[in-house]
């Protein structure tokens, strides 16, 4: 096993400084509207914009690019930086640039680029500038191979070509242009002979706007780099320390070099990645860092091989590790370790990042979720083991730094070397939570199967095989194609499907004014048998998944006009080749995930109903529903007989039936039913939504054409088919998965009592067993996976486990990870800890929020002692002391016993 190199004093100091800062009130560091005024003037001037009027006349994508420029200017405005601290180089830093405050839970701040009327119209669909999803990754290979200047040159070259094509087209069709004076997109004239011409005109205009925007936004990044070069030079002048002087000189040189050249050394490549990542996050795309061990390896290897002897090679490796640790610390710069000042930092609005409804997420849970992950290991596109020295170096750096962000996942499979297995186990044992595990044995085939359906040629089959081998995950855990796809998803409640199936299309509601419940779907007949239940469940699943599929298509009709992402599109998929923004279908690959929440809860409650209501007929379905609505507590306290019955139902539901994770035949049967239904129904929804939105009606019969147009109108869309709008290859490739992310406390609110949980209690985290139900050893949880169709979960299904750390060594962790992989688990996070310590943190957190002044003071003093304890929240890692109380309590209940548990 490769030995881990320990952190240097520099890293320890930077880490400590970050954590100290994270324990303070950071609300003053956020940008505010006024901060953009001066920078906007500069950006306007640099981009030839005379005034606001002229700005708002520009297409949205161009405005967005100028807003990116404004944002990056503001970040380096010395005056603004007095409170945002975004134009500073900390003593000892080797990687420079500062990300502005933002997070998935606290929101983002960005210069306004939508007009008042656009905002008013967007209120209908809850779209705002913040509606940008992020959740993706950039093609860093492209960035590193071209450099920022290379991309600007490419954009300018393509812009010239597109402008020339436009002029030629204009000359060729003078009649068409008789009434068009400006180079703007125009409405398709439906019944006109000019339909084709209009489409071509719009395509060319859009292309020109796109390349112009890419150029503006990439130049903005380049200028930002230059300004940091200036700052490093200024610091160089101020510093008397010779070593630091040399470092600052090197930093200034690198920053400057990156504006005009592609990176050549490891340090340059890492700085380049950080600058671009920073610019992405500053422009609100909170995204993953992708497969950095692959992207950076050639730079690392070259520098390493250039070392003259073993000693210098060793020194270089140590230096590279230190650099990477500095890089991690920079990425984690926005950390909040205290829950005291969160309300002041709440910058969230009504944005609908997914679909058209406001994005209500558990904000406290997402305070430190920046949606940035690094993925290591795995396969190369051609299918070989991708492990390299960078894989180990990154693991080493994470073992040393152990921050909650960026997250780290390692792709593993049957092919994974013993050395990497040991290193992963060692890192997990040392950090007690990193890295997360992705099982290529199931994920690669799952992704490949979804992509391959759409391919007809040999070339296409080969291409998607490579893409599947090269997959990574976004900032949570959803699998995406590494820098090659646009990705959106919908979360659908599986428990709602269950409730509709047993309650005639309504979810059970504690408000008796709703009669049989809240009507979220169509009314159906009452079910009496398990077979009837299954049929009903599938119908409701179809209902909700159809909604999700249509919503994801519908997003493409509006995103271009609200959340275009020219900077992102510069290095994503085929956007540059096609001259289209990602929001305009430019990537070439569009993945749409259908993710069921609350699947383990649903499997457990189905198991209870199957056994006691349908098979044994011990309890009447109406009585059970009433008991669930009333949280198994009779409204009339003197109704002892009924209370006894409800106690019995609860006891049987909680303890006397099969549970997700027990490897029983019952769970195998029900789990297969739910997951196979999901895959089957996603396919059906895919076919139907393609029929409605995607395919051209050219050459179709008038009857069919009318039918489809009618369906489009019913679905709220009246435009042309998406293949015409976004290109002939456009389609959404639907993936299916299971997960609850960090929303399990919130998603349990309003949900009646089910198995092992009371009314309003949190749902089970992701694809894990219910807290306290692992009775037959951890390995039977893994055996459960081997009985389920995990290799069809192309949108992933992550299992979060936490075990008592006492008595567990790195070899044990390796055995656990190996068992997970060999049993076809899909994704896993493992946290190790001591229950008593977690309980103490909970008590202190509670005191900090609700205690007396004395208690608060004690909590303030003692809580920082636990700042290094990081756990899994659902979609990401979080410092335990930064989590909300519900999350903390839920976490404590999840511990699985291991040796010496009693001593915890």
């Amino acid at each position, binding site marked *: 096993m490769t030995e881990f190199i320990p952190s240097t004093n520099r890293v320890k100091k930077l880490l400590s400084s970050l954590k100290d800062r994270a324990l303070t009130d950071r609300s003053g560091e956020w940008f505010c509207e006024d901060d953009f005024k001066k920078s906007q003037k500069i950006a306007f001037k640099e981009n030839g914009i005379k005034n606001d009027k002229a700005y708002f006349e520009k297409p949205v994508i161009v405005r967005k690019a100028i807003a990116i420029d404004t944002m990056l200017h503001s970040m380096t405005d010395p005056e603004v930086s007095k409170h945002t601290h975004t134009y500073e180089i900390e003593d000892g830093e080797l990687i420079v640039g500062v990300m502005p405050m933002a997070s998935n839970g606290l929101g983002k701040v960005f210069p306004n680029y939508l007009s008042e009327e656009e905002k008013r119209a967007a209120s209908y669909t809850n779209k705002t500038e913040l509606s940008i999803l992020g959740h993706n990754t950039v093609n860093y290979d492209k960035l590193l191979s071209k450099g920022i200047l290379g991309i600007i040159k490419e954009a300018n070259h393509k812009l010239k070509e597109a402008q020339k094509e436009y002029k030629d087209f204009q000359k060729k069709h003078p009649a068409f242009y008789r009434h068009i004076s400006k180079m703007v997109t125009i409405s398709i004239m439906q019944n006109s002979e000019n339909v084709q011409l209009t489409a071509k005109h719009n395509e060319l205009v859009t292309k020109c706007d796109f390349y112009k925007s890419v150029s503006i936004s990439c130049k903005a990044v380049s200028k930002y780099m230059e300004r940091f070069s200036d700052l490093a030079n200024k610091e160089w002048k101020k510093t008397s320390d010779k070593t630091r002087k040399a470092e600052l000189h090197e930093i200034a040189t690198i920053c400057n070099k990156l504006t005009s050249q592609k990176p050549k050394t490891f340090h340059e490549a890492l700085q380049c990645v950080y600058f671009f990542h920073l610019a992405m996050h500053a422009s609100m795309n909170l995204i993953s860092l992708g497969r950095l061990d692959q992207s950076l390896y050639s730079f690392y290897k070259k520098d390493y091989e250039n070392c003259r002897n073993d000693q210098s090679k060793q020194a270089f490796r140590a230096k590279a590790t230190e650099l990477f640790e500095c890089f991690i610390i920079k990425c984690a710069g926005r950390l909040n370790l205290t829950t005291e000042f969160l309300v002041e930092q709440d910058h969230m609005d009504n944005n609908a990042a997914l679909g058209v409804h406001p994005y209500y997420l558990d904000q406290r849970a997402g305070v430190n979720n920046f949606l940035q992950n690094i993925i290591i290991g795995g396969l190369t596109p051609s299918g070989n083991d991708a492990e390299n020295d960078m894989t180990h170096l990154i693991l080493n750096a994470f073992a040393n730094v152990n921050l909650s962000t960026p997250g780290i996942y390692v792709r593993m499979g049957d092919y994974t070397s013993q050395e990497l297995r040991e290193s992963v186990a060692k890192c997990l044992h040392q950090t007690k939570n990193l890295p997360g595990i992705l099982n290529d044995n199931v994920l690669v085939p799952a992704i490949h199967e979804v992509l391959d359906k759409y391919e007809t040629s040999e070339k296409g089959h080969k291409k998607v095989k490579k893409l599947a081998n090269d997959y990574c995950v976004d900032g949570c855990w959803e699998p995406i194609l590494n820098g090659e796809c646009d990705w959106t998803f919908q979360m659908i409640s599986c428990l709602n499907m269950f409730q509709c199936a047993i309650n005639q299309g309504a979810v059970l509601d504690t408000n008796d004014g709703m009669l049989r419940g809240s009507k979220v779907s169509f009314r159906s007949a009452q079910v009496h048998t398990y077979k009837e239940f299954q049929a009903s469940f599938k119908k409701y699943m179809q209902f909700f998944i159809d909604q999700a599929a249509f919503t994801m298509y519908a997003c493409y009709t509006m995103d271009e006009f609200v959340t275009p992402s020219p900077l992102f599109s510069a290095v994503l998929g085929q956007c540059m080749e096609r001259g289209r923004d990602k929001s305009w279908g430019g990537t070439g690959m569009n993945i749409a995930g259908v993710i069921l929440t609350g699947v383990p809860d649903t499997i457990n409650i189905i198991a209870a109903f199957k056994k006691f209501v349908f098979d044994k007929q011990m309890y009447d379905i109406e009585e059970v529903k009433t008991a669930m609505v009333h949280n198994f507590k009779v409204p009339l306290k003197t109704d002892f007989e009924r209370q006894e019955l409800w106690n019995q139902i609860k006891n049987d539901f909680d*303890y006397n039936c099969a549970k997700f994770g027990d490897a029983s035949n019952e769970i195998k049967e029900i789990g297969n039913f739910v997951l196979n239904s999901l895959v089957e129904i996603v396919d059906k929804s895919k076919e139907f939504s393609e029929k409605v939105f995607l395919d051209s009606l050219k050459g179709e019969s008038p009857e069919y054409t009318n039918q489809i147009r009618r369906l489009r109108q019913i679905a709220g869309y009246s435009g042309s088919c998406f293949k015409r709008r976004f290109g002939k290859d456009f389609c959404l490739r639907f993936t299916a998965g299971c997960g609850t992310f960090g929303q399990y406390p919130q998603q349990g609110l309003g949900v009646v009592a089910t198995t092992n949980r009371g009314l309003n209690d949190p749902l089970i985290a992701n694809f894990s067993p219910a807290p306290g139900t692992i009775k037959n050893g951890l*390995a039977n949880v893994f055996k459960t996976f081997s009985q389920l169709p995990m290799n069809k979960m192309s949108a992933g299904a992550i299992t979060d486990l936490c075990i008592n750390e006492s008595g567990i060594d790195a070899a044990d962790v390796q055995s656990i990870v190996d068992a997970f992989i060999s049993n076809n688990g899909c994704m896993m996070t493992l946290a190790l800890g001591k229950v008593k310590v977690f309980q103490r943190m909970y008590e202190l957190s509670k005191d900090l929020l609700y205690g007396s002044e004395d208690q608060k003071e004690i909590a303030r003093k003692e809580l920082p002692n636990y700042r290094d304890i990081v756990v899994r929240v659902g979609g990401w890692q979080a410092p335990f002391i930064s989590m909300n109380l519900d999350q903390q309590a839920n976490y404590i209940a999840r511990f699985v*016993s291991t040796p010496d548990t009693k001593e915890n």
Partner: protein
Amino acid sequence: MIRLFNIGWHTKEDGPGNRVVLYLQGCHLRCPWCHSPHSWDMKSAPLLFQAKKCTLCGQCVKACPQGVHHIAHGQHLIDRSKCTKCGKCITVCPNSIENSMDGTLSLPTTEISVKELYTKIKPQLDMFKRNGGITLSGGEALLQKEEARELLLLCKRDGISTCVESSFTLPPQAYESVKDCVDFWLAGLRDTSFGQANFRNDDIIIRNIKVVAGHCQKIFARYPLIASRTTEDIHLERFASIMEATGITDVEILRCNPSMELFYTLSGIPCKLEQASSIPSDRQFQKACEFFKSRNLTVKNKENP
């Protein structure tokens, strides 16, 4: 069918590495310091009752056809002599869970076919196969020697490390029957005269250990250190002699379990020792360690892992 009263799914205390420990029902010795008196009955453990968790709802009184349960004056009384272990009281009890010792009432003994049991524990055994295996403990595991052998053979077939804990006081046939399928032995060398310093059984123990000695990888001795019962020189001397006679080099000193009285309370079995006075002092513990070390034996315990 094999009878067991508990499963330890992941322990590092009963044999080398990570072990799945099966606690088999039945023990012929009934040591007064035993912390699992519910294991003594050859067939099944008595009804366990946790008074703290009882809400005095009276459901068990109604459900029990034998009249085992009585609730009077705010107390729940149990007459176990009438109990047929039918489990009806557990089924109706709102605070009890079938097949679990977590609730108010429980019947911990499970009777299960060896194959079924093996299927249940196999995933966990596979997971820790590289560094661990199975341990049969008890009770006295080899009182169910046929079932134990069947299970051990399944493990050996699948390359799983096996370990058996025994007092080595059973007839030699018990050891003969499994000696070829056990990798490690935990020799629970308890004082069969229970503190009376009667050495007559020692030869039997030595003989039995010799039956298995040539067939296994290693034998570990376990020495229960009970104040005033096993802390005197005469006891230490005696155990060292057994170890020397059988070539055992490693001994683990087990201090009296601080929760020794728990299962006496739950099972209604009278406890003959007083817990507080049975726990050895640190001095007695150190003395025992030093004694064994002075005899060139390797001492393993939690303070010295």
